[in-house]
């Protein structure tokens, strides 16, 4: 099975851990990770979720997608999108997934970005590809806040 994700009908967001991560990179409290790991989830992750809150497929052949190096994500304007095709290959049925998450570890770790599919996706044996440019995170500059207090 080759599944092509729909366009413009699924949405995602930066999580609290993701916000902490970005600010940490910016001010030198931590370094940008070398790799991001894409996970699928039976439940839609929230902005507060940890990795333990995800319901990833339990199939033996499921693993978070490796090889998503940070450099494989492209910055374009205020958006980030995958700059390479991202493909899961299943040899068994993985069940239904409703959401996805981008983490900083192949197991456990922090949920940095997350999203949901407009419609649940039933994953059967085969390949699931997210083509280059199909995962995009856009920033809304007006909703971010920084404030010097007490001046």
């Amino acid at each position, binding site marked *: 099975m080759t599944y092509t994700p*729909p366009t413009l009908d699924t949405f995602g967001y930066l999580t609290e851990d993701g916000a902490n991560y970005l*600010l940490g990179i910016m001010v030198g409290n931590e370094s940008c990770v070398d790799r991001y790991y894409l996970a699928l989830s039976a439940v839609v992750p929230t902005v507060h979720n940890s990795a333990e809150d995800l319901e990833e497929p339990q199939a033996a052949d499921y693993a978070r997608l490796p090889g998503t190096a940070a450099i494989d994500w492209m*910055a374009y304007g205020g958006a980030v999108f995958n700059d390479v095709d991202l493909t899961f290959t299943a040899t068994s049925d993985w069940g239904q997934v409703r959401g996805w998450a981008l983490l900083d570890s192949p197991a456990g770790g922090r949920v940095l970005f997350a999203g949901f599919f407009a419609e649940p996706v039933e994953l059967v044996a085969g390949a699931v590809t997210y083509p280059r440019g199909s995962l995009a995170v856009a920033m809304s*500059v007006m909703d*971010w806040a920084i404030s010097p207090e007490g001046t």
Partner: protein
Amino acid sequence: MAGFITSDGAVYLARLATQRVLPPAQYWLTLTRSVPAPFLSTEELDEIDAPDYARAPIAADGLSWAASGTTVANTVEVLWGVPGADWGDVQGWALLDSPQGGSVLYGGDLGITWTIGAGMQPVMAPGQLNLSITVSSWALEI
């Protein structure tokens, strides 16, 4: 005193997260006579133009900022020079990546008109500069 990330700031964070740039050794905080807009370039900033005015540095070294949830705050004083003459009124501020020129990463409204006279060294105390991210503001499309 609400502030905002600028369009250049959003680009900058996106590039940081994808290893297109590395954070600088330090950032630079400037005072402006009017409140900057989110889409300003550095040339459009209404900075103090006194001959002895310079942007104030703050390091990006893992020691000068402390994180709390989705906010980081300065742990060290941000010090401008001592004005030799009046610098006048300021109403806004901006965080940049360079002592001159550079990109405006964040901007904001001081919420007051701050009159800086000769000998009045502006200082931002630890904890007064807060950088926050509103997580619900991101949208992702597949």
